[in-house]
């Protein structure tokens, strides 16, 4: 637990000092919202059914950009090896990274939801929606953090991560959009979408935590 807290604290400190990565992701998310607003002419009551899809696609793209740096900086500075030399379970290193990425991305996502609330004049902040977004964020961050490890030593990593992660994230995208439909009181069908989101997140977390020690092996 101490190792997880140490990595989390260190990563949050580094994220704060090296803000350009996260600011790029946040700026990308804000511009995406504006592009959607202009492209689909999102005004009035017609906007509400489209918002879940707009939000989740923005979250996934912004998250992919942000998480792509999770291990790249460590590999470039050689500190990834220093982490691997520590006498702690490698899963603890992974957990610290995932927690730091989740906290930073949740901050970006809440900012996006506030911006969308202002831009589209729709109430988006609610406890149920925040819960869905939090669960979904843990799900896709756990997967993209693992995949960013695989791509950290590859030259074409910026392309590799979206190509690997986005197809795997389709089930989460569907469940996230539908759960958000339900949270916004839109027709969402009878399936338990929040439960499916939780199941995907658990699968993603457990599988990634088990695969991480193998992914970092040379």
């Amino acid at each position, binding site marked *: 637990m101490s190792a997880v807290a*140490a990595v989390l604290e*260190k990563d949050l400190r580094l994220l704060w000092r090296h803000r350009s990565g996260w600011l790029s992701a946040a700026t990308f998310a804000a511009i995406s919202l504006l592009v959607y607003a202009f492209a689909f002419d999102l005004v009035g009551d017609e906007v509400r059914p489209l918002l879940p899809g707009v939000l989740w696609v923005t979250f996934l793209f912004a998250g992919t950009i942000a998480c792509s740096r999770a291990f790249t900086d460590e590999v470039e500075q*050689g*500190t990834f090896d220093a982490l691997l*030399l520590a*006498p*702690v379970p490698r899963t603890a290193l992974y957990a610290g990274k995932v927690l730091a990425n989740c906290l930073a991305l949740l901050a970006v996502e809440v900012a996006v939801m506030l911006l969308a609330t202002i831009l589209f004049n729709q109430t988006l902040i609610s406890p149920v929606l925040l819960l869905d977004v939090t669960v979904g964020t843990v799900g896709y961050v756990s997967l993209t953090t693992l995949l960013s490890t695989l791509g950290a030593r590859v030259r074409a990593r910026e392309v590799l991560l979206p190509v690997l992660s986005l197809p795997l994230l389709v089930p989460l995208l569907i469940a996230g959009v539908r759960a958000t439909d339900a949270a916004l009181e839109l027709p969402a069908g009878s399936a338990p979408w929040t439960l499916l989101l939780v199941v995907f997140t658990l699968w993603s977390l457990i599988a990634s935590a088990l695969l991480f020690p193998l992914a970092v092996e040379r």
Partner: protein
Amino acid sequence: MSTAIEMRALTKRYGGTTVLDRVTCSIEAGAKVALTGANGAGKSTLLAVLGTLAAASDGSFAIAGHEAERDAAGLRRSIGVLAHSPMVYEELTPLENLRFFARLYGVEDGEARASMLLERVGLWRRRHEPTRVLSRGMHQRLAIARALVHDPRVLLLDEPETGLDAEGLALLDAELLRAPSVTVLAATHQLARTAEWAEARVTLHRGRIEAVEGTGVMAEVATREAVRR
């Protein structure tokens, strides 16, 4: 005298290329051993395998009594590693770097240990500056402190002289290469300097041990024909 490092037919292959070929060697506790050989001889790979950064393709090894396959965490706790890169965070200060690594290694009173090491490597006055503004030599001094943060019994050093001035080299000798009761295995190209600190020299060629000189090391030396093959 007990054995600090025990390698048994240690082999490392990358694809079809054999980088380490059945390296068998034991190093006594407290011995100071220089690992020499031309570029590509397998020195860095051997240190990476011993540091558990790369998995052995075949063979086995133990450090300070910890078998790599059964007790990797215990083995990692016993070793301090100095590699080509300083392995420190550029955006953190020297003090924050050492505090972090002390915490990761579970060092009791990591704050005091970090402060003491910064004094010893001559970085105390610059402890609050971002590491990225420090010179290459100061990075190496910080790397020395990082390698020592958990008081390891075995040091694996890969060209530790890199970037150090005369004062830095003296520090390297005092803190690492001549540290009492610490086993040292250091890859180096500075053959003239090895006479100052090394009790033994192991020479690698194409992934095999070609020669052993000095005391504290027992190794299976490949025949010249086998090495040249």
